[in-house]
C-alpha cells in the first residue's frame, strides 16, 4: 500500500505541476490582477464533491470580473488539484500562497484536509474560506468557516424530529472519522440532556466506502420496531450513502416508519439515486436548490449558463462559497486592500445576502449566521423545506455540549483576539485552538 501511495503522490505531483504551469503561467501574472486560489480536489475520492465547488468558484470570479473586478483590478483564479491527498493539500496551499501570491484561498472539503492546511495558513498569514459543514471545535484567525457548525445543522434537525415526529429512540449512524464522531458525541450529550435514555440511543460506525449495508439496515429495523418512534441521524459520508439508501428502499423502510435525517446528503449526492422510494427522508442544510427566492433563481440560472448544462444541481457548500466570496469581496472593498491582516479586521460584521432570502453576517468567531432548513426528499431528487428556524442561527465553534469546550469562546476582534478564550479562567488558550 505504501508503495502505491508513493506512486500516487508522485504521479499526482507530476500531473499537478504540469497543470499549474498551464493555469498560472508566472509570465502572465502582472500587477494588474488579484489572484484567488482554489484548493479543491479534482481527482481521487473527493473529486466527486469538490469538482463542483471549483466550478462554482470560477463562476463567482467570472461574475465579479463582469461587474468590473475588485479595487479596479481583474480577479484571476489559480486552480490547483490536491488530488484527495491530505499532505498534498498542505503543499498546494503553500504553493498558492508563496509562489502564486494569491490574496485568499477558497477550498478544502474534508476536515482532515482543513487540519492539514491550517498550520500553513497560520504560518504564512493568509486567508482560507472553508465552505463545508463540519464538527466545530476549531477557530483560527486565518480561516473563515462558511459552512454549518453542529448547532446550525445537527441540533435543529434533532429538535425538529423530537417536536414534529415525536421521536423517542435514536440511531446515530456515521462513517468512522472525526466529523461523525464529534457530531455524535455532541448529539448524544444533547439527547441525554433532553431525557433520552441510554437504551434508546444506538450508535453505529462504518468504514469509508461501506457498500454492504444489509445487516446494519436490518439492525436499524430491529431497533426501530420496539414500540417507540425511531429516527436515524446519519453522518454517513460520501459514496457510502447511495448503497445505504438503496438498501433502505429495498428492505422497505419507509420514511413514515423510520425517517433518516442526513447531514452529508445533498442534491449532488442524490443525483445517482432513484429517489422515489426515499420520499420523506430528511436532510438538514442551510440551503436547498428548491428554495423559492429571486436570488436563488438567479443563481441557478447563472450556474446553468456557466456550466452549460441545465440538469446540474446546486447545493449547500456552493451557497457557502457564494456567501464567503461575496464577504471577502466586501471586506476587501472596505479595507481598500487585499492585505490579509486588514481583511481579517474588516470582514467581521460584514453582511451579504444569502440565497434563502436573508442576510448572512460574519461573526467575530469567524463563523457566519445562517437559517437552518429541514427538507424532505422528493421523487425528483430535490428537497422540499418542511421546517425552518424562525431566525438566523449563529455558528457556535465550541460546542456547549462537550465538557472540553463548553467554557470556550472565540473572538478575533481586538483586544481579545483569541480563538479559545476560557470564560471560567479568563485566559486565552486551552484545547484545540491557536
Amino acid at each position, binding site marked *: 500500500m505504501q508503495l502505491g501511495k508513493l506512486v500516487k503522490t508522485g504521479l499526482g505531483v507530476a500531473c499537478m505541476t504540469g497543470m499549474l504551469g498551464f493555469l498560472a503561467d508566472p509570465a502572465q501574472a502582472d500587477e494588474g490582477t488579484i489572484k484567488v486560489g482554489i484548493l479543491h480536489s479534482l*481527482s481521487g475520492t473527493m473529486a466527486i464533491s469538490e469538482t463542483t465547488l471549483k466550478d462554482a468558484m470560477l463562476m463567482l470570479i467570472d461574475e465579479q470580473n463582469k461587474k468590473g473586478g475588485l479595487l479596479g483590478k481583474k480577479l484571476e483564479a489559480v486552480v490547483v488539484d490536491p488530488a484527495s491527498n491530505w499532505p498534498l493539500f498542505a503543499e498546494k496551499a503553500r504553493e498558492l500562497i508563496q509562489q502564486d501570491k494569491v490574496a485568499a484561498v477558497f477550498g478544502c472539503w474534508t476536515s482532515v484536509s482543513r487540519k492539514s492546511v491550517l498550520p500553513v495558513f497560520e504560518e504564512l498569514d493568509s486567508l482560507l474560506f472553508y465552505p463545508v459543514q463540519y464538527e466545530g471545535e476549531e477557530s483560527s484567525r486565518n480561516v473563515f468557516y462558511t459552512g454549518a457548525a453542529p448547532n446550525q445543522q445537527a441540533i435543529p434537525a434533532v429538535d425538529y424530529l423530537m417536536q414534529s415526529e415525536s421521536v423517542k429512540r435514536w440511531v446515530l449512524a456515521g462513517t468512522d472519522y472525526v466529523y461523525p464522531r464529534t457530531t455524535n458525541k455532541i448529539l448524544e450529550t444533547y439527547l441525554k440532556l433532553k431525557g433520552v435514555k441510554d437504551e434508546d440511543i444506538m450508535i453505529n460506525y462504518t468504514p469509508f466506502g461501506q457498500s454492504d449495508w444489509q445487516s446494519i439496515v436490518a439492525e436499524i429495523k430491529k431497533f426501530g420496531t420496539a414500540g417507540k418512534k425511531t429516527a436515524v441521524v446519519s453522518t454517513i459520508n460520501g459514496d457510502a450513502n447511495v*448503497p445505504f439508501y438503496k438498501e433502505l428502499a429495498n428492505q422497505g423502510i419507509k420514511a413514515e416508519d423510520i425517517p433518516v435525517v442526513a447531514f452529508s446528503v445533498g442534491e449532488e449526492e442524490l443525483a445517482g439515486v432513484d429517489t422515489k422510494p426515499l420520499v420523506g427522508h*430528511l436532510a438538514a442544510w442551510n440551503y436547498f436548490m428548491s428554495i423559492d427566492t429571486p436570488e436563488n433563481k438567479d443563481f441557478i440560472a447563472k450556474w446553468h449558463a456557466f456550466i452549460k448544462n441545465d440538469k446540474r444541481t446546486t447545493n449547500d457548500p456552493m451557497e457557502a462559497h457564494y456567501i464567503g466570496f461575496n464577504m471577502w469581496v466586501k471586506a476587501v472593498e472596505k479595507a481598500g486592500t487585499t492585505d490579509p491582516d486588514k481583511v481579517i479586521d474588516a470582514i467581521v460584521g460584514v453582511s451579504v445576502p444569502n440565497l434563502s432570502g436573508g442576510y448572512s453576517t460574519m461573526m467575530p468567531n469567524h463563523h457566519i449566521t445562517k437559517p437552518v432548513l429541514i427538507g424532505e426528499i422528493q421523487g425528483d431528487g430535490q428537497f422540499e423545506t418542511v421546517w425552518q428556524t424562525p431566525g438566523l442561527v449563529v455558528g457556535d465553534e465550541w460546542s456547549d455540549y462537550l465538557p472540553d469546550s463548553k467554557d470556550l469562546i472565540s473572538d478575533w476582534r481586538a483586544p481579545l483576539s483569541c480563538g479559545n478564550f476560557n470564560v471560567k479562567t479568563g485566559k486565552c488558550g486551552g484545547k484545540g485552538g491557536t
Partner: protein
Amino acid sequence: MYSIDPTLRALRVYIATLAVLFAVLVHSAGAGAAEIAPLINALAQGNFDDREKAIENLAATGDAGVAPVLEALDGGNLYLRKTDGSVWIVRKEGDSLTLVDPRSGAAAGAAGADEIEKIKVNNRLRRAIDAALGSLTLLSGDVATRLNAAQAVFKSRDPTKIAAIEKAIAAEPDAGVKIAMEQARAAALLTSDASDDIKLASITIITARGDREALELLQSLADRSTGPVQTAALAGAHSIASELAAWDAAQNVWYGLSLGSVLLLAAIGLAITFGVMGVINMAHGEMVMIGAYTTFVVQETIRTSYPGLFDYSLLIAVPLAFIVAGAIGVLIERTIIRFLYGRPLETLLATWGLSLVLQQAVRTMFGPTNREVGNPSWMSGAFELGQITITYNRLWILCFTLAVFAILLAMLRYTALGLEMRAVTQNRRMAASMGIATSRVDALTFGLGSGIAGIAGVALSQIDNVSPNLGQSYIIDSFMVVVFGGVGNLWGTLVGAFTLGIANKFLEPVAGAVLGKIAILVLIILFIQKRPRGLFALKGRAVEA
C-alpha cells in the same frame, strides 16, 4: 407559513365544527359532494397539525370517493388555487397543468404555474394519509390494495376501525388478505377495552403472526395489562422472541452468502489474471468500473431511445460489458503487460499507474459525480421468507455469480481455449513446443479475466455507486479472496469468498462494521502464516512455474 391571519383562524374553527357535524351525519346518511368539498379545501389550510386533522375528518366520512384526493395529496399532485382557496388535483403533461375536480374527476381547464401552489406534506401527514386510506380502501376491488389497507390498519391499531374491518373480513374472498385483516382486528382489539376473553383470542392471532411488530405489540400489552392477559401476552412475546433468534441466525447466513457472492463476483476475474496467469493486476477494479459504466451507457441509450426495453437493460449490458472490458484487457496485455512477465514489481507499478489513468479518463469522459443506474423492476424490492427479508437484487446477484462461475469453470475444463490456457499457465515452454501460440493464449486469458470483471461491474452497478472510484473499493477485497482461497484455484476462490462473507456477517453485529473488517484482516494474516498457499493450495509442478 405559520402565521395565520384571523379570518383563516375563524375559518378553521368553522371547519372543525363542520367536521364534527359531518362525522355525526355520515353514519346516518353519508355525506354528499357539497358537504365534503369544504373538508377537502381544509387540506390546504393552516399548519401541519391542522392538515392532519383535516385528513382525519375526511377519513371519518367513510366515503371511498375521497381516496383519490388523499392519494393525490400523498403523491404531491394536490394543489391550492391561490385566488379562491379551492383545492384541485393537478395533472401534469409536459409543461401544461390541468386542474381536475377532486370529487368528480372532471377536467376544469388549464392553470398557470403561478396561480396554484402545491400542498406540502411531511412524514406525519403521509402517515395520517396511509391510516386514512387503510380504512377507506378495505373494500377495494384490488387484492394488493386491500392487503395494504389491512396492514395500514394493523399499524394504526385504532379501535375505532374495528367496525370497518369486521365488515371487510366478512366480505373478504382472499384467504391471505383475510388473515392480515384478522391480525389487524386483533391489534385494534388489544388496544381497545374489550373483555379479557376477546383479548386472549387476539393474543393467539398476534402470536401466530410472529414478527417484530407482533412482538412489540405483545410486549407493550404486557406492560399495561394485568392478570391472565398479561401472562398470555408475556408467553406469546417469549415464544416469538425465541423463534426470531433462530431466524436471525438464518438471516445472517443469507447476508453472508450475499456478501460472499459480491466478493466472488469481484474476485473471479482476478482469479484468472492473478490466480491463473500470475499477473498482479492492480487495474482489475477499473475493469469492474468499466463494466458498470457500460451498463450506464446502455441504460442511458435505452432511456432516450427505447424506453420499453428498460427491464432488459442488464441483459443487454452483460455481453457488451464483457466485450468492452475484455477488449480493453487484451489491449492492455498486448501493449503493457506482455513486456513485464516475470517481473512482478514492475507489473504492480505499471498496472497501478494504469488504474489511475483509467480512473481519470472515465472522470473526464463522464464527470466526477455518480451516474444513476436504475434497478429494473425485477431487481427492486424484497420478499419475506419466514422472518427473513430477501431483497431481489441480492438474490439475483447470487444466482448470477454462481452462473458466471459455472460457465467459467466449464469453459476452462471443456473448451479447446480452456485446455490451452491451462497448458500455458502450467508449463509455458512445453506448451509452446506442442505448437500452442502462447502469446495469443496470454492475450485471450487476460481478456477473459478482464471481461469477467466487466460482467461483475454490471451486477455491482445495481448495489453500489457508479463513480470513477467504484473499482478501488473492490481491489483489496478481491486480492484478499484470491489469496485466502488459494492462488490458481477457482474452487478456492469460491469457498474463500463465501467463507469471508459469512464470517464478516457474523462478526459485524458483535464487533461493529469497522472492527469486524479489521478482525477479518487479522484472521487472514494469521491464516496465511499457517497456510501460505491459501485454503486450496495447488500441488505439483504448477506451483514452481
